């Protein structure tokens, strides 16, 4: 279908709008129904889109009928197709959790949720750098609002930090865009990719400042050291469905780094070829290090989850630094895995916190769980997946990344860090698990409310993906390899998107 590429943006937009209008705006019940239906539609259309991409190749959607580079174009390729499908699945799982009751903590949860999805999908799909800025704004502003959902002093403080840092980020984004437009005369990514190779001398130098400024912006989003400080507090204080949805937010930053520094400032960028790589190397490795230390230091499960998000960001950035097809493929696989598993952990941490009374999710002695078996099983699954132990998806991603390092210097840096990072997660999770599940005082008290069926379904859906990612690992990794090949092949990822331009 011709318009399928824009569905991932339009569906959440329309559902968000409908929820602001009567009669749906008047009852939380109809908003819930609308949300779930919307997410189902979104999932179906994203699946159909990916199917279409697989069969017919890249889908180019010129908005307003204005051809690139003059108008805005959406590019649904295997990379963006995979990521919008991931977002749609995550959204469905998270919304199921939210409708079980957490959506009542404040106004407008459902429309904001939808707008948030719209922003994320738009950021993945757009082929225009300014449009990327716009969708960054959409997803950021929605995330500011979602962050304060269900109120509280901690949330407001964390949200304030998040807002101000990201406003700084947005300003830098605009500076960067201005510089790039001022040197390249275009902001269509494919067009930029072609023009950047012709830049020379001083113009190239000026363009480089813009390009590197964008690395700051995307790095902030991706929680790259030294700009990761906001993340642990923000993620650990957000309400569960929001934190779970945020699992994909750092990935938007990582994705932008991959897209911009592979397609535009990649191999073929002439004087500006691979400009991000020398910066990404040390920062990615330091991010993994600080994240792993944070994992070790975490006093509660939510902070642990947040620090794991930092580790996964660092790992993905290391893939970007390796800058090869194999590394990109590994990153795509790992991205899917870590998004779903971290989201699962954020939701599970909420269930755990609610059943342990005052101890919440802190690693201290507490009363027993109401549903120890189910929660324990889910915890084991999440832990194994995130540590990267077989038989769950973490290990596949990890091995793909390890295998993607090329020179022995790369290997010497990346392998020990990733493996020691896994060990640190293993120790942290074993400590967490044994304390949470076995260190009890007194006998069971059934005061706490058991997790609701919808909440269980939601967590179950997320956790189910991790064995599936292994069982179908062959097909999936083949797909990510194709996607990576596409991204690194400037013939298809740049020239192929501009009719009438040839190298």
């Amino acid at each position, binding site marked *: 279908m011709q*318009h399928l590429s824009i569905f991932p943006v339009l569906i959440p937009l329309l559902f*968000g*709008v*409908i929820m*602001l209008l009567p009669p749906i*705006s008047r009852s939380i019940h109809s908003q819930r129904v609308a949300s779930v239906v919307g997410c189902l539609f979104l999932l179906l259309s994203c699946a159909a889109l990916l199917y279409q991409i697989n069969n017919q190749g890249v889908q180019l959607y010129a*908005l*307003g*009928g204005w051809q690139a580079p*003059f108008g*805005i174009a959406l590019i649904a390729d295997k990379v963006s197709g995979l990521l919008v499908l991931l977002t749609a699945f995550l959204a469905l799982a998270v919304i199921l959790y939210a409708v079980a009751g957490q959506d009542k903590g404040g106004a*407008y949860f459902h*429309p*904001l949720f939808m707008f948030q999805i*719209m922003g994320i999908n738009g950021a993945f799909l757009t082929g225009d750098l*300014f*449009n990327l800025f*716009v969708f960054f*704004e*959409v997803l950021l*502003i929605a995330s500011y*609002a979602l962050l*304060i*959902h269900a109120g509280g002093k901690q949330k407001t403080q964390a949200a304030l930090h998040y807002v101000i*840092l990201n406003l*700084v980020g947005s300003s*830098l984004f605009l*500076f960067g865009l201005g510089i790039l437009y*001022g*040197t390249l*005369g275009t902001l269509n990514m494919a*067009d930029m990719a072609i023009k950047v190779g012709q830049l020379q001398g*001083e113009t190239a*130098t*000026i363009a480089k400042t813009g390009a*590197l400024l964008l690395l*700051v912006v995307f790095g902030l989003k991706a929680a790259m050291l030294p*700009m990761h*400080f906001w993340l642990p507090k923000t993620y650990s204080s957000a309400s569960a469905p929001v934190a779970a949805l945020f699992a994909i937010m750092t990935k938007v930053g990582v994705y932008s780094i991959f897209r911009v520094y592979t397609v535009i400032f990649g191999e073929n960028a002439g004087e500006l070829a691979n400009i991000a790589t020398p910066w990404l190397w040390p920062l990615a490795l330091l991010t993994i290090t600080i994240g792993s*230390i944070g994992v*070790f*230091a975490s006093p509660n499960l939510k902070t642990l989850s947040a620090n794991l998000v930092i580790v996964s960001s660092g790992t993905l950035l290391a893939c970007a630094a390796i800058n090869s097809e194999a590394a990109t493929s590994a990153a795509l696989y790992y991205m899917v895995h870590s998004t779903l598993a971290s989201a699962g952990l954020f939701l599970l941490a909420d269930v755990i916190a609610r059943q342990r009374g005052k101890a919440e999710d802190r690693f201290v002695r507490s009363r027993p769980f109401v549903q120890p078996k189910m929660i324990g099983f889910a915890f084991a699954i999440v832990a*194994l997946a995130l540590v990267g*132990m*077989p*038989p769950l998806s973490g290990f596949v991603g990890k*091995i*793909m990344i390890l*295998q993607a390092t090329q020179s022995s210097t790369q290997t010497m840096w990346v*392998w020990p860090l990733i493996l020691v990072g896994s*060990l640190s997660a*293993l120790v942290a999770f*074993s400590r967490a698990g*044994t304390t949470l599940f076995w260190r*009890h005082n007194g006998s069971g008290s059934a005061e706490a409310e058991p997790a609701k069926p919808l909440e269980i379904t939601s967590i179950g859906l997320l956790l189910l993906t991790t064995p599936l990612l292994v069982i179908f690992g*062959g097909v999936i*990794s*083949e797909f*990510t*390899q194709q996607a990576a090949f596409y991204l690194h092949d400037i013939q298809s990822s740049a020239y192929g998107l501009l009719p009438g331009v040839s190298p």
Partner: protein
Amino acid sequence: MNSLIWLPFLPLLGTLVPLLSAHLSRTACAFLTAALPALTLLLVLSHAGDIFQGERFHAVIPWIPAIGLDLAFRLDGLAMLFAILILGIGLLVILYARYYLSAKDSIGKFYAYLILFMFAMLGVVLSDNLIQLWFFWELTSISSFLLISFWGHKTEARKGARMALTVTGAGGLALLAGLLILGNTVGSFSLQDVLDNGDLIKASANYPIIVVLVLLGAFTKSAQFPFHFWLPNAMAAPTPVSAYLHSATMVKAGIFLMARFYPALADTNLWFLIVSLTGLITFLVGAYIALFQHDLKGLLANSTISHLGLITLLLGMGTDLAAVAAIFHIINHAIFKASLFMAAGIIDHESGSRDMRNLNGLWKYMPYTATLAMVASASMAGVPLMNGFLSKEMFFTETLHQASLGSLSWFIPVLATLGGVFAVAYSMRFIHDVFFNGEPINLPKTPHEPPRYMRVPVEILVAICLFVGIFPSLAVGDLLFAAANATLNGPAPDYSLAIWHGFNLPLVMSIIALIGGLLMYKNRAHLFKFQAQFPASDPKLVFESAIQWLTRQSQALIAWAENGSLQRYVFFVLAFAVVMTASSLLKLNTTAGQRPEIPLDALSITCAVLLCISALATVIWHRKRVVALITLSVVGLIVSLAFAKFSAPDLALTQLSVEVVTVILLILALFFLPQKTPKESSPRRIVRDLSLASLFGGIVGTISYALMTRPLDSISTFFTENSKTGGGGTNVVNVILVDFRGFDTLGEITVLGIAALGIYKLIARMRLFMPSADGNGLAWSEDRHPMLLKVISQSLLPLALLVSAYIFLRGHNMPGGGFIAGLVTSVAIIQQYIAHGVEWIKTRIKFDYQIMIGSGIGIATLSGLGSWVFGHTFLSSWFDYFYLPVIGKFELASAMIFDLGVFLTVVGATMLILANLGQLTTSERPTQQEHE
């Protein structure tokens, strides 16, 4: 596909059986659980004939080629030997555990974990792919963790489980690295390819690192020194687990690994040095420590460490015969040690204690069990006619043939004999302390014989001990030969399994060990006294405190780095931005470009100076909020003037109206904030921030200057050329906004709408007290809504709306458009709020601003969707010219509908924010009097 695939997967299915049958009787559950492993064992045995003929079975299903992982299994002699041990002893343990576990314990869960382990362990030994081998290897660590912590309410179970998982997990990660390098070196992850390429591997530069990493995996798993400490602490597990995992099977996984990779990695100096020395040290350390344990299981655990060291030593020696001896001892140790653990479990179960200082004279209470235990101990000590004797004899023989240490090689047989002495001594202690040596002391229960069937597994194992010991070739000849063949990846050497080789040196060593051990046991009091001088150290506590120290250090580091200061975080972001931009600007030699400069005039200079001054003033007076707001609005005003000067009237208009609305909003917000801001920055910080800000400002200024003085060839010419013909409007800015880049605008109005919703969300439930006086203590004016303001604003409203309609309609061709019109309308309505107050408006304006936002975004989206009907892409515009009498020729464009959406969203969003900020306070307005 042959039945090989089923071998590991039958037990995997089997993990479900105990969970499903847990509600049945314990016996039924045990039998059902045993069914699938038994079937698997039969399947394995059905291949025995072919394997003994030297055949090898493979089965491969491709799985994840990207990481070299295939579902690949092989069955050869070595794999079969281990499979038989795993399944055979596993079945006996199932039976044993049925009686061992108490009624409180969940037997279904226990069996499920046990079978899960069986599956994992079978996977390890049957793997024909390196990655898959690691896959199952890690699964054994996980299932071992679950089994050790089966009694998770006990501290030592949790700690022991964590320690075991950490040590074996760390080793597993090293192993993964080693296997990956190994596979990359060979170019294949197939085990057979690796085994066939031993020479290539040993010649490769990667060889040392491969050996070290793979051995790290093996040594941690098989509890070799210095990683041996986890095994005694794993004894917190139920005894069936100790018997099965921590003596017979899992701890042999490391040994298996060394045997499996023997053709690929062994037989070099490096291998010899690391493996044999580690083995030797472990052999001696384990034997020594075992003697001083008071806990029955502690003794057995350390003896296991020692025996694992012995096998490792044999594998390190590098001769084919040593490898045969190693395999033989694997079998023997598994059998006698499993039976000993079970016997220890029986003693514990029926007497309530495992402390050898209290357990004395049990012979009287349980003679039958005592006999079994004594036979097994004798095998452990290496007494003739037992299986342990045979392999120990082979071990001694091999130590004598070792010459790799040059003139120091004689150390090896001597130390081996010393280890043998200790082995006899601790075996003696096990027998004598427990079954004789006086009367029991303060046992919780009166000891008695166990249930009949609890003894059966021990009986079977002890019978095998004797059978192998007396008829070795009949009992295990074929199996041993096949396993040796498979280990060596070639023909096994000639060896003899006879029990009598004549009176030779190894026999002398055995005799020395026996007599020496007895003497040592007899004089144990002196040894114990000597040992007591060492300060007691519990590896568990050392390990825990090491972990806790690490945790504290990490916490300190994190607390220092993430100190919660927003200023610091922003500083980092900006500093990073400075580094990124400055790094390339340093290479830019000339700032100014070639483009001719626009002539300067006095007005522009004045404005520029004003702009700088007011920007600086904002910073200087930022703590006086109202003043800062005024200076800030000067900045905004000059920016709009600049837009106007550089022929961007639309932007100027927009900027102007945005200024108005934001200043009003800010004043409203300031009303709720403290009037004065305290001084928070230290002078140092001011200097730091000022420097950073100046630096960044300078950089941005430099870049802007560099950019503006250079010519640019951009896509914007396309827009000016196509605005009228393609977009139907002469106002290029508006056509860009609503047509060329309408999608951006759609996004931005969504942002505006969301912002309003977000602010509403933040303040909807907030209720603040209105201060009764301003900052100087002056009471508010009594006249809340001055008449003059009311009248003027009310009469201005229609005028303003008319202006905004005009601006809206002309937008497509002249400066204007939905955005500006929306802002103008908002200002007009705000004016009413100011003049009349929220309450007054509420009763008159029934607009729901939320609906306005929704319908605004909705209309804009629908106008875009409309183009689908005509087969165009989203947001494709349509326009045409019409003629009506009186009005004349006019244009209709779909973009106007879009612009209407923009208009509604802008009004809705602004008003939603404003109306809610306005009613933040309690409606009761405090007066000065009430406070006095």
